């Protein structure tokens, strides 16, 4: 399967999607494609158009204009063929609440064309993967929020689809379950193209190989999570906790290092208050840690701690989805 490279590995292709709801332009010319093996984190402020885009990709809503192809099948022209390749967890994980977990999963398996023994095997496998054994015979409306989300997830992966579209899959899960679901996603990733939306930026680092940020229906950033970190103001800043040196002289020495923009004192260090904490900010996110540690060694300062900042995703997110470009 890994051999089918090139054209075939592009499983989702989205071209200039536009969608209005009355006067609201929910999606405004979004294009991207997702290849096998990619986990695309879909980010953006509330109302940016993430769920709307996903609804169009999965064939629930028609686009006003633009094209979506899933595994080469056009979702508008050939919806059934495209939908067979997709597993979808809609926003809020809607489920038939009067059914038991088992009955619901059997229903989903039935629609996916699995019968008899094959159906039982699929359901059992999926239940084990998402750890639903304990609630199999329970009516869905009596399940807790996290279990409901997992039933929805189970439904979406039951037929081992090539394309997974997950709208906030870890919303409402406890930290252990978040971890489990992320491991599951990582484990499935090499064989699938996965699009997942999330408001949890740590999730992007944990599972995504690519992050697309949208705001007011448009893509404002598309790249690897590392690239996003690099755009953070504090990217590659070095925080130093030193001992045996006066703050002023340390600052002067460090400021002279090539590529350093500024050095600020961020508090005293150590339990006795004799130390000093400095934050060295580089110019344009350059990597200066090596230089800084060379200077430290040359001067013979004692180092209590040295930390290189990756840059906070939240900062970047806020900067590129500034309030004046978003709506409620």
């Amino acid at each position: 399967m890994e051999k089918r490279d090139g054209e075939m590995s592009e499983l989702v292709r989205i071209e200039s999607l536009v969608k209005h709801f009355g006067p609201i332009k929910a999606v405004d010319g979004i294009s991207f494609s997702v290849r096998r093996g990619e986990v695309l984190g879909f980010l953006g402020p509330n109302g940016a158009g993430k769920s709307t885009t996903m609804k169009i990709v999965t064939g629930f809503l028609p686009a006003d204009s633009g094209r979506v192809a899933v595994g080469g099948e056009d979702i508008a022209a050939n919806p059934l063929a495209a939908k067979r390749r997709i597993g979808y967890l809609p926003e809020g994980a809607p489920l038939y609440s009067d059914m038991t977990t088992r009955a619901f999963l059997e229903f989903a398996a039935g629609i996916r064309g699995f019968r008899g023994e094959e159906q039982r095997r699929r359901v059992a496998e999926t239940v084990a993967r998402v750890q639903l054994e304990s609630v199999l015979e329970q009516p869905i409306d009596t399940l807790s929020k996290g279990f409901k989300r997992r039933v929805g997830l189970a439904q979406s992966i039951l037929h081992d689809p090539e394309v997974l579209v997950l709208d906030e899959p870890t919303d409402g899960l406890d930290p252990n379950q978040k971890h489990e679901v992320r491991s599951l996603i990582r484990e499935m990733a090499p064989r699938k193209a996965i699009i997942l939306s999330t408001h949890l930026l740590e999730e992007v680092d944990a599972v995504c190989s690519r992050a697309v940020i949208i705001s007011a229906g448009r893509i404002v950033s598309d790249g690897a999570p590392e690239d996003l970190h690099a755009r953070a103001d504090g990217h590659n800043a070095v925080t130093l906790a030193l001992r045996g040196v006066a703050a002023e002289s340390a600052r002067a020495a460090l400021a002279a290092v090539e590529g350093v923009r500024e050095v600020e004192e961020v508090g005293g260090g150590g339990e006795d208050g004799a130390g000093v904490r400095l934050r060295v900010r580089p110019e344009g996110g350059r990597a200066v840690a090596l230089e800084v540690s060379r200077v430290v060694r040359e001067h013979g300062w004692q180092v209590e701690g040295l930390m290189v900042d990756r840059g906070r995703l939240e900062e970047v997110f806020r900067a590129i989805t500034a309030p004046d470009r978003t709506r409620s």
Partner: protein
Amino acid sequence: MANVLVIFKREFQGYFATPIAYVFMGVFVALAGVFTMYIGGFFIRAQADLAMFFGFHPWLYLFLIPALAMRLWAEERRAGTIELLLTLPVTMTQAVLGKFLAAWLFTAVALALTFPVWITVNYLGDPDNGIIVAGYLGSLLMAGAYLAIGSCISALTRNQVIAFVVSAAVCLLFVLSGYPVVLDVFGAWAPPFLVETVSSFSFLGHFEDIIKGVIDLRDIVYFASLIALWLFLNVLALEVNKAR
């Protein structure tokens, strides 16, 4: 077809997962019995047939069937499960058919539970059982038409109360179009052929033919095409505004 069956099964079992099934069947059978025995003067008529029993069905269906049909799509919309259902590899027509057939079979079961009335009339006299069978079939067909109307209107809203009220009103129109109330209004100004047309749309005319034991293909075609038309509109209604 396989998909229709899977959806049908889910829907049908759904009725029995909640008290809906028992309440609906209980009320249906009780009302059918009460109407026939007391209001219809079953014992006084001293006539061994079920004309009275079937005569009440159009009125019974008028509020019971919209109550059954109101949740078909409105509930899917409210709960958001419509998004789940319509992103599975099923066509809109399959989904509409599966749901409709499940509701129809459910009505058939409720109708079948009125069998004590049939037994009673056989015990008391010597009715023409062929006519009674025709009556049951006619009643079931008419119930299908009510259901198709209710299903379509339920697809237009996420509010079950609105779905109920509007379907009951539309069904009432279909029932009344055979009655003088409506025909007189038309007769005052419309040419006779139009009056004829309107009256030929009435549930009552066609249903009464059938329960008299006259099974005319035209009456069957009438109900069947009415069902097909409303289910087609149902599919259209979903296509147009499934997101609302």
